């Protein structure tokens, strides 16, 4: 008997989708207790369209192939002291921020997708989420392995895990992800699966990684692009989730739209760090943050939202603010880190004159007017031997937890400030977007562990800043922090390169 050939779709249906059965000995709600409380209505999980159809054997095969290639490059990188090929040692500070700020998010993504990959009662969605969970675990581990070599030769990477749980600026990415994970399973999928993976991670993993290659960092670009090859599956899952929810029931539309509004805002705030990494921490430039934003958000995201319009989905709220902010945020963020360079776990610096000119060219409407004067002032101060480190601690936004550094788009000289009262206590926000998020769910956001307030409450040791940095954050003060100029990193680099 000649067996008929099965196509990929039928095979996947038989091997995977058919594994579930209807419970008769237990209440399925006890097995899948989190599926209803968010108000999302699922009428038929069978309508789920598998975004990709990898069976586990194929998954192991292709992923092992990717891993083999990747680790061969890591091995070669460390055997040949690949860190010496970086075009400029300032670049390595981007790697430090990546390992302390981003890699732990991959870990949280692993945990979050494992959770929804257990909790959805539809097998198709569940398996897709489980595979993503496994991929995310891959990402955090390959990133640690890629940066393991840098850790041996540069300061500021050695306490990434401890610092992610504590350091003031790292509470920004951390709280972004704990916000998503502490939400219900469908909100998590819109937050991470759709908003973050479909549009926002591209900005980190595509133009930034291409920039890493341009700056001579083969280890990072290799894990970046290798991770991104999984990301294409994740993006497809993110898009399928939203289509599925919208096709299941019309009542899902307002809920999904609310989550899109929230998570695009929260995501763009988080990407402020990436904006700064792209513009300021890649010494050799590929494209500006503004250009990357135009290609990956405005163009690609625009096409996406046009496609989703047939379901009644609109562009995220405050998209007009976001469009203006692309001209500003990278400059505002780097100035913040530069002026808090004593309290950062990586080095900061004044951009070179060539870089300042590049900014003028890339940001003709804003750079010379608003940001060049900051650097002129910093240069003057540095020349006088008074490198500017600001005193005291900044006010933080209750939601995104970023210092309140963003300005009003109709008056970019003035910081934007919003506030609201809840249960007789005042809360402050960097923007209408963050304020809206708080007002929608204040009981959630009153719990924010705001680093500045925690220091004041005496929960971070101290009270001297130096003690907080060295004992609570476990920074190696005088090595990890302060200006790139005169840092041990710079001295070692010069020694390796034979520069006096």
């Amino acid at each position, binding site marked *: 008997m000649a067996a008929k050939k099965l196509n990929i779709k039928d095979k996947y249906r038989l091997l995977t989708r058919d594994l579930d059965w209807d419970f008769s000995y237990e209440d399925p709600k006890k097995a899948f207790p989190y599926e209803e409380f968010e108000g999302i209505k699922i009428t038929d999980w069978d309508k789920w369209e598998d975004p990709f159809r990898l069976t586990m054997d194929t998954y192991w095969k292709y992923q092992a192939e990717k891993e083999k290639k990747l680790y061969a490059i890591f091995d070669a990188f460390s055997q040949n002291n690949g860190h010496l090929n970086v075009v400029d040692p300032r670049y390595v500070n981007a790697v430090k921020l990546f390992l302390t700020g981003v890699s732990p998010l991959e870990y949280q993504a692993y945990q979050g997708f494992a959770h929804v990959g*257990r909790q959805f009662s539809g097998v198709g969605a569940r398996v897709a989420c489980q595979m993503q969970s496994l991929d995310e675990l891959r990402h955090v581990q390959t990133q640690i392995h890629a940066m393991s070599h840098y850790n041996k030769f540069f300061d500021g990477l050695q306490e990434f895990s401890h610092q992610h749980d504590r350091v003031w600026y790292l509470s920004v990415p951390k709280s972004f992800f704990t916000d998503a994970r*502490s939400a219900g399973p469908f909100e998590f999928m819109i937050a991470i699966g759709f908003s973050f993976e479909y549009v926002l991670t591209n900005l980190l993993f595509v133009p930034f990684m291409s920039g890493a290659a341009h700056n001579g960092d083969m280890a990072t670009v290799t894990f970046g692009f290798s991770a991104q090859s999984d990301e294409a599956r994740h993006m497809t899952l993110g898009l399928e989730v939203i289509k599925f929810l919208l096709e299941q029931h019309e009542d899902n539309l307002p809920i999904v739209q609310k989550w899109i509004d929230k998570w695009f805002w929260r995501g763009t705030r988080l990407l402020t760090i990436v904006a700064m990494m792209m513009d300021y921490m890649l010494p050799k430039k590929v494209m500006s943050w503004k250009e990357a934003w135009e290609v990956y958000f405005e163009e690609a995201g625009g096409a996406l939202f046009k496609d989703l319009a047939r379901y009644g989905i609109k562009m995220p709220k405050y998209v007009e603010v976001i469009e203006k902010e692309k001209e500003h945020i990278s400059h505002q963020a780097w100035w913040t880190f530069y002026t808090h360079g004593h309290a950062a776990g990586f080095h900061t610096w004044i951009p070179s004159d060539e870089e300042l000119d590049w900014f003028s060219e890339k940001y003709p409407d804003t750079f010379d007017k608003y940001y060049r004067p900051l650097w002129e002032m910093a240069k003057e101060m540095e020349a006088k031997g008074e490198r500017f480190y600001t005193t005291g601690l900044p006010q933080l936004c209750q939601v995104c937890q970023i210092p309140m550094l963003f300005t009003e788009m109709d008056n970019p000289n003035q910081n934007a400030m919003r506030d609201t009262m809840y249960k007789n206590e005042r809360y402050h926000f960097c923007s209408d977007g963050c304020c809206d998020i708080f007002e929608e769910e204040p009981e959630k956001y009153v719990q924010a562990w705001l680093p500045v307030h925690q220091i004041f409450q005496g929960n971070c040791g101290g009270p001297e800043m130096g003690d907080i940095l060295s004992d609570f954050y476990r920074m190696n003060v005088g090595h990890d922090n302060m200006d790139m100029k005169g840092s041990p990193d710079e001295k070692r680099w010069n020694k390796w390169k034979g520069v006096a």
Partner: protein
Amino acid sequence: MTIEIKTAMLEPVRNTFAHIERRFGDKPATRYQEATYDVASEVNFHYRPIWQPEFELNDSGRTAIVMEDWYAFKDPRQFYYGSYVQARAKQQEVSESNYKFFEKRDLARLISDEIKQKLIRLLVPLRHVEQAANLNNVYGSSLGYGTAITQALLYNGMDRLGNAQYLSRIGLILDGNTGDSLVVAKHHWVEDSVWQGVRAYCEANICVEDWFESFVAQDVVLDALVYELVYIQFDAWLQENGAQDIGMLTEFIQNWNKDTNRWVDSVLKIAAADCSENKALLEQWVSTWRGKAVEALAPLATEMLGEGALDHAVAALDKRLQKAGLFK
């Protein structure tokens, strides 16, 4: 001479990350160590889960098992993602050539209809048991504590999906890719009295809240018994009854079991050794679930192999439990 100077100049500043150095000393670390230890967040989660506010997002309190150090659960296989997928890829390559060979030579035609029916009724429905095991292991991975055990639980969960898919392919080989055998097998799983005990056991375990208890009920108790019954005893029976080629199709799961048992036993041993409360609790869980499993598997074991088969399997389980330090 110049080479010597260059090497001296490129002396590393440190050998590994600080948290790895605190555990293992100031020396170069393995990839397993750097990928595993102290990677998960421990404090300052900002928001309590709206679906479970009694716990933090990462909280060791979701099981009654207590550990001095949750990173004590070193995986004897030292699987991190890269070593895990590469190990499985090698196994699947062998398995793929087995399946191809079996299909190409149409070895199914050498198997009697009677045995085919037996396989569809008694072997193929195990894909649903694997599906339950997938849920239970992923559950532990998502709510468990410390990367050492949670990553291994995820690998195990995905393995179970792989096992379910391999078992489904046996059905497809037997029915010439029509999928009819899978429909029949599922019917047995849902209706046939031989399976109802096992199905009730699986459904009950999926609803267990304590993730470590769920691990015990699945990976320790049920898996050990199924492994002995199906992949050792039934495999031998097939060999004796002219269906030895099926062994080519279950080889993956057999080898997988050997590999995984090492990890399961080590988890049990490490948890039991940590404190007497753990040991007592594990013994209580094992006793409860072993009782249920024996009852659930009895009709299946009898139908598959006759009297006495289950006793052998229970004896093998007890031996493993003893070796792990329980019940002594």
